[in-house]
């Protein structure tokens, strides 16, 4: 039963840390006269008043704010304006919302919702809602107790609980409007994602692929909570809502009932493909976009085939849920490369023509620029060190396999990059139409599969690959990258000691904000990457910053601190650093995190002095 001791070093290659500065005019620039004007090249939110009503800011998921009071000049004057302890110690991944001078915060399990009054000194609590998620079957929901945020629409706050409820609250009073039970925690299902409201429907996806669930995206009627439609990721076409409109761009994604035929036997029934990440919406095309998680709980050897429709991205009709196209980034995923990362919808000048594109910084380490009308990949370039594949074949849409890195339980494979958390995990990027750059909170992690490790669960011994993660080339485990998607290159980057597990916000004033796992909240010049300001918060940051116009007309920026999540489990879950394979091998790469930060959830609001 002894685990093997794995040498964690790897050949360190010098990494280009900072490419040449861009001399190209941003493809999608916009007027700077109106600070709240929606940028051209992105889809305007109808409600951009300086509020922040959904985690991604707008339907296009740019996380770009038109506010411009915070600038490279003024940012050094940022000071703390208010703080608030959430009373919860697990990982805080949510984005606070700001609507009508009220801030809304949803916490990790037990999923409290707080409404804070921004008009009063000290931002006091207006109301608190406690959903009291099921705690009776202790330990049944094993690990992911995070929550990635709420969404506001039409006087209502919508959020999900770990025990699979979607709840609608009156935004003014905190009174429950309706509760919808969407899944069962006793069968391994949980919900951790932030819902999105589109045209009167609340879109929600499940988590729990590795527990044997079958992934789905569900639409609820926003006024009643009743089911509008549910689209599965595996099984027969009718369950996936695949019908006559379904036209994938690539041959590999076409065919009848691929949700059955790309699996052996009945493996699709426990095929994963959960939709635990982000959803974007294009009102003009009336399409919603979201990704599906990796196939599970089968080993790759047990599921020959492409394992549709996991580890890919769907475009669906926003009203009916009918699938319009699908593109699979990782056919027959070998590396736990979930496809759930956000899609940023921007119109870009590509090879001389304006294209409706979608930017995806995927777990597989590639930055995909795709045509969002049809799912064509226009370019796919590695934004981190990648060895697991040799590139993306734009003719077939398939990754070019690197057979030398294919895992087989019991064999030794080293230097698989990126590691399972990917070049970027769930932590969302931001796009500025002013600079034309995508800001990527990235991981620089590689992993080894070595030998066989035995473990025990529910009275049953089992064995698996002994997975260890460690820093990739350069020795830094994280990197904050400004990427030019038109010229397909890194413009500048900032190396970080730990994986950058926070979201990003970027502003018309030319400032980008992000946080680090050791607890620094940072402002950098969006054009150059020059550090402008930083503040040490109480616990490591894995949340999503937001910026908004306060009741006094001034610009504020807010962030939840509170380390945890997969990367921070060693602190939030008090895991033993000697057990390098805990948290699926992530603990090995994070052994020094407990000495860098401690746990505990606190909201910070910053403004100019």
């Amino acid at each position, binding site marked *: *039963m002894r685990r093997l001791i794995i040498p964690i070093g790897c050949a360190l290659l010098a990494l280009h840390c900072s490419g040449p500065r861009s001399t190209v005019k941003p493809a999608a620039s916009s007027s700077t006269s109106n600070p709240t004007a929606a940028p051209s090249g992105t889809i305007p939110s109808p409600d951009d008043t300086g509020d922040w009503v959904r985690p991604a800011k707008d339907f296009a998921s740019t996380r770009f704010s038109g506010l411009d009071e915070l600038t490279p000049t003024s940012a050094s004057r940022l000071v703390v304006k208010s703080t608030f302890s959430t009373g919860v110690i697990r990982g805080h991944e949510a984005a606070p919302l700001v609507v009508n001078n009220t801030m809304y915060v949803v916490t990790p399990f037990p999923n409290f919702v707080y409404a804070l009054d921004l008009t009063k000194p000290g931002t006091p609590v207006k109301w608190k809602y406690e959903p009291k998620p099921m705690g009776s079957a*202790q*330990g*049944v929901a094993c690990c992911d107790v995070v929550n990635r945020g709420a969404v506001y629409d039409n006087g209502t706050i919508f959020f999900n609980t770990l025990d699979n409820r979607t709840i609608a609250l009156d935004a003014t009073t905190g009174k429950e409007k309706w509760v919808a039970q969407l899944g069962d925690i006793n069968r391994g299902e949980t919900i951790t994602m932030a819902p999105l409201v589109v045209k009167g429907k609340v879109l929600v996806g499940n988590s729990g692929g590795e527990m044997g669930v079958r992934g789905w995206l569900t639409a609820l009627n926003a006024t009643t909570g009743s089911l509008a439609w549910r689209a599965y990721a595996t099984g027969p076409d009718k369950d996936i809502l695949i019908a006559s409109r379904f036209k994938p761009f690539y041959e590999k994604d076409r065919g009848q009932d691929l949700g059955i035929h790309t699996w052996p036997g009945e493996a699709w029934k426990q095929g994963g493909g959960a939709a635990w990440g982000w959803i974007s919406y294009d009102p003009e095309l009336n399409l919603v976009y979201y990704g599906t998680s990796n196939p599970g709980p089968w080993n790759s050897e047990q599921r020959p085939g492409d394992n549709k429709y996991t580890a890919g991205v769907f475009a669906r009709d926003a009203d009916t849920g009918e699938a319009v196209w699908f593109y699979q980034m990782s056919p027959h995923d070998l590396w736990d490369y979930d496809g759930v990362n956000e899609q940023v919808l921007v119109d870009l000048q590509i090879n001389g023509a304006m294209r409706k594109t979608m930017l995806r910084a995927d777990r597989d380490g590639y930055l995909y620029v795709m045509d969002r009308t049809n799912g064509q990949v226009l370019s796919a370039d590695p934004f981190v060190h990648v060895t697991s594949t040799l590139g993306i074949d734009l003719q077939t849409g398939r990754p070019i396999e690197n057979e030398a890195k294919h895992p087989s339980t019991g064999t030794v494979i080293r230097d698989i990059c990126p590691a399972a958390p990917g070049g970027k995990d769930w932590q969302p990027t931001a796009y500025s139409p002013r600079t034309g750059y995508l800001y990527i909170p990235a991981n620089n992690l590689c992993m080894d599969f070595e*030998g066989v490790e035995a*473990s025990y669960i*529910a009275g049953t011994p089992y064995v698996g690959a002994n997975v260890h993660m460690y820093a990739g080339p350069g020795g830094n485990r994280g990197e904050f990258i400004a990427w030019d998607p038109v010229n397909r290159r890194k413009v500048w980057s900032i190396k970080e000691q730990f994986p950058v597990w926070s979201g990003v916000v970027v502003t018309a004033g030319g400032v980008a904000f992000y946080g680090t796992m050791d607890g620094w909240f940072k402002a950098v010049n969006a054009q150059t990457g020059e550090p402008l300001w930083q503040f040490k918060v109480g616990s490591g940051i894995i949340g999503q910053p937001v910026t908004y116009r306060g009741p006094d007309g001034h610009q504020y920026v807010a962030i939840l601190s509170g380390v945890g999540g997969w990367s921070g489990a060693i602190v939030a879950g008090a895991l033993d650093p000697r057990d390098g394979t805990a948290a699926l091998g992530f603990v090995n790469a994070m052994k020094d995190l407990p000495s860098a930060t401690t746990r505990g959830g606190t909201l910070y609001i910053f403004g100019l002095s």
Partner: protein
Amino acid sequence: MMRTTVLGIGVAALCIALVLSISPAAHDANVAAGPLKVCSDPNNLPFSNARQEGLENRIADLLARDLRTHVEYTWWAQRRGFLRNTLNAGLCDVVIGYPSGAEMVLTTAPYYRSTYVFVTRRARRLRIRSFDDPQLQRLKIGVQLIGDDGANTPPAHSLSQRGVVRNVVGYTVYGDYRTNSPPSAIVAAVARGDVDVATVWGPLAGYFAALQPVPLELLPVEPQVDNQFPQTFAISMAVRTADRARLQRLNQFLTNRHTEIAQILARYHVPLVEEGR
């Protein structure tokens, strides 16, 4: 040739003797003070349940009797985080069944060793013993699934390495926690004929096979170590890594009571194997 025997207990006793001979003589008077605090799954027969009907509940009772105290349970589903939230959080002091030599805990000398088995309906006369049996190419096979990336039950690995995948049905060990002892569904599936054969961890197979309406046959899988994948596992009691005095007391108990423990294991139909077979 593999047979299911109770000889493993003898080996365990030998191990215990060896451990005792080199253990420091430290004796902690606090070991026996207060109730016996056991960390246990409330819904996981044949090992344990909240009604205390499992073999580990019986062994805990026996231990408490020796310590002249009573058992106090901390109930927690035995999933990822079980040790962290129970034993290593200080809520309880002993896990009755845990793999010998596991990290993050101290484990006693093994008190039994079991094996994965092929479970079939006796009337079918399939007599499958080996992963190389050609019948496995065409029969419908149930396997227990785990779901960590790259991790699964050893027979699931062994079958997939032989290309036996298209005729395999998965039963997660998590199951549906609202039902009784969720991992047991795979044994009922064989009895019902949902699958022709299933590979199941011995103690689970033994206990639930005896409860089915039709006779089932259990044969240990071969080879016992298949291309790096062990199919047999020794089971110990576990305590916190710093709890050496308690460990010594438990080792004494296992030596003193090995006959009674063997009787409990037999009563729950646990298939036992010898070390190193």
